[in-house]
């Protein structure tokens, strides 16, 4: 019997089903890996265990007893600790203070008990003294620590809550190989001391190095639970892929080999988390960026659009060899950028649909005086093409459904008739019907000579529509797939860094 058992968990966000009858069983003293492609539900499942998301159905048992976890405090009391990627440290306080922040020891009428802080902090840190490295004094301020030291401090912070079940969500993302080794020693210490560890990672070799058992999630379901010693990388990938049914809407892609000219040429693009990306884009091509989330795809797109700075590299657009310095620059050079996070980057929520639709057009044509009738005449064809359903141009865009809002944002970019359309995970959280419409438009645009770079976290979608896919891993392009290579298996292998 496991120390943690999760059964029958369902969760949906709006129209999207995140988890369906998901299951997990973790034993004491084991490192249990949770694996699955983007959108398979790993993070959601962990958030449910940690108490920051409430499931629609399902039960959680701790040591056999059904436990209700409705808030993070409940999880903490049940002995569950979570290590988040978003660091939850206070930079201006010291290591010791951050460790004990939840309950700083005090003496007398609320005075800081320095001695007690020191003692307890030392007790926590001592077992991991080799791991921490120099500069990790108890009095050191967090803002002076290196990022890997901060990660270790995060782990120690979790330990300070005396957690018996610890969830690690992609903990090695900012560590280099040497630091990972040292970090794994720490994890093994924890395991050997009897704790149960849930470990989410996307790095295959690390999974096999540290894990004892693995549960594979696919489309929100727990597909398989295996001992890592009894399986191999290819088998795991197979389980993740399953029998991939490409959505009807994505349809067939036709491989072309008759592209006219190269529209865009990128050479050795470097930035903080981008490590020398080079590629070319031809007219009328749909180029896909694949790989797991956060490997540099979005960043590359934003740099191309001038929305983020690059430290090195050249971008050559037909007619210009200077990198777009800002979005206005990119827009006038014929680029368009569609973000998947429409609430943060796209939609002007309280403004009328008209204002949302013409926003980019104002920049491209340097307009000052506006004549709404003319503007409406200009955007009406776009609106019809996108099959948008709305009551009127002066209605606030918040009155539209999510799918239609995203269509409006797409419409904003179609209005300026771009040469290159950069799409940054555009169909996230959109209903199937709208997605189908969008795929259709993408194909039409490509046929008209518009080039598209599409990053999608949904692999089936990418495979269905892209002519060519560049797979990102760790800030660089590790694989190019085209023609008959465009299979889910190849995509996953490259994304997970499986050496062929």
């Amino acid at each position, binding site marked *: 019997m496991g120390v943690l058992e999760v059964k029958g968990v369902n969760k949906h966000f709006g129209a999207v089903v995140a988890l369906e009858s998901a299951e997990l069983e973790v034993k004491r003293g084991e490192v249990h890996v949770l694996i699955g492609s983007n959108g398979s539900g790993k993070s959601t499942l962990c958030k449910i265990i940690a108490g920051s998301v409430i499931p629609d159905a399902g039960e959680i048992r701790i040591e056999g007893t059904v436990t209700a976890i409705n808030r993070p405090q409940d999880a903490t009391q049940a002995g569950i600790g979570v290590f988040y990627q978003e660091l939850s440290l206070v930079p201006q306080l010291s290591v010791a203070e951050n460790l004990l922040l939840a309950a700083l020891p005090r003496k007398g009428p609320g005075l800081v008990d320095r001695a007690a802080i020191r003692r307890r902090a030392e007790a926590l840190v001592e077992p991991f003294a080799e791991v921490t490295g120099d500069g990790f004094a108890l009095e050191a301020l967090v803002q002076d620590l290196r990022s890997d030291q901060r990660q270790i401090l995060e782990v120690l912070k979790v330990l300070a809550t005396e957690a018996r079940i610890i969830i690690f969500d992609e903990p090695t993302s900012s560590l280099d190989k040497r630091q990972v080794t040292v970090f794994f020693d720490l994890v093994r210490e924890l395991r050997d001391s009897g704790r149960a560890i849930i470990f989410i990672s996307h790095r295959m070799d690390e999974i096999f190095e540290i894990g004892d058992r693995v549960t594979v999630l696919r489309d929100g379901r727990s597909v398989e639970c295996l001992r890592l010693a009894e399986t191999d990388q290819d088998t795991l990938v197979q389980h993740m892929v399953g029998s991939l049914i490409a959505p009807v809407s994505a349809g067939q892609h036709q491989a072309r080999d008759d592209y006219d000219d190269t529209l865009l040429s990128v050479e050795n693009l470097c930035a903080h988390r981008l490590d020398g990306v080079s590629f070319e884009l031809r007219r009328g091509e749909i180029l896909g960026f694949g790989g797991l989330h956060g490997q540099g795809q979005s960043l590359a797109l934003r740099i191309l659009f001038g929305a983020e700075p690059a430290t090195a590299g050249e971008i050559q657009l037909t007619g210009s060899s200077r990198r777009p310095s800002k979005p206005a620059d990119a*827009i006038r050079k014929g680029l368009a950028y569609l973000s998947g996070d429409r609430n943060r*980057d796209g939609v002007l929520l309280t403004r009328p649909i008209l204002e949302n639709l013409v*926003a980019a057009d*104002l920049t491209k044509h340097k307009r000052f005086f*506006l004549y*709404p009738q003319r503007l409406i005449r200009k955007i*009406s064809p776009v609106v*019809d093409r996108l099959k948008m359903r709305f*009551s009127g141009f*002066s209605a606030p865009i918040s009155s539209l459904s999510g799918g239609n809002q995203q269509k409006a944002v797409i419409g904003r970019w179609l209005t300026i008739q771009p040469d290159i359309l950069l799409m940054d995970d555009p169909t996230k959280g959109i209903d199937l019907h709208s997605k189908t419409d969008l795929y259709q438009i993408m194909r039409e645009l490509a046929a008209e000579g518009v080039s598209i770079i599409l990053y999608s976290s949904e692999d089936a979608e990418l495979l269905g529509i892209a002519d060519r896919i560049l797979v990102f891993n760790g800030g660089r392009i590790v694989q190019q797939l085209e023609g008959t290579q465009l299979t889910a298996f190849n995509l996953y292998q490259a994304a997970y860094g499986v050496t062929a």
Partner: protein
Amino acid sequence: MAGESSKESIVRASSQFDPGALLRRPMVIPCLLIVILMILGETASPGFASPGQIIKLLTLAALMGIVAAGQNLVILGGREGIDLSVGAIISFGAVIAGNIMQGANSMVAPAILGAAGAGLGIGILNGIGVTILRIPPLVMTLGMMGVVQGALVAMTRGIPSGNAAPVLADFITQPVLAGIPGILFVWIGVGFFMAWLLSRTAFGYRIYAIGTNQRAARLTGVSVWRMRIGLFGLSGFFAGLTSVFVLGYTGNSFIGVGDQYMLPSIIAVVLGGTPLSGGQGSYTGTMAGAFLLVILQSILITLQMEEFGRQIVFGVTLLVLMLFYGRQHRLRV
């Protein structure tokens, strides 16, 4: 479906002002309050709501309303935009205008240019501090207020100087057409200008964009910092313009004549439906808000409420408004 609605929308949008917008909720409240207060005032002191009185009230409201136009723009731009230096700019501008004019009708135009230009310059400095030095607007404009007041003292040595030209004073206080003083026509003109700016120019669209979602606006190519400098510049400009009219109203300037305009300009904007967080609202609402404030002030005087009472009421009004307009998010886990 979409095709039909396009045509409908074409018809609707081709009218100059969307009647639906005027009936939107933000306007209803101040108008209702105006009516109620008018009735109250007339009951407490008959003659309160007579045409002559109303014109007087509107004149005062015009002075407040014009400076509130600039404040409105700054607040619309979002990011805690606010301009606390407008009062000091009015005092400053009044002295400059008075000294240029020296009672001479021929010098009215240069006086206006001088005062408004000074206001514009100060506003631009505010904008630079906010965008390039990234000083929070409240702190920046508060500091600028101190500087402008200091400059005022330096210029005048504490002695009020300068005189309004007769034609200016007449313009403000005497009827020009149909018994309505010239200043009201100016205010209506400002109203039309603001409506045009906010709904018929790209600049106006962009103001709402940066006030609603600065990130998204930037991704559509808006130069956010340039816009903000422009907004603060306009706020200073309107304050400078108002200073000339204030001078015409009072005849000659006294130090600190503008201080009483600062807080009401903010309240008028908020009462008119522009939340302190920006991104939505219109100037017509602010105009109603200004009128409402003037009536409120007048009633408090009629009820023989003294300075302290008026202050307390103003402060409490702002606090109560914050219940509806200015609350921040709950902390989530």
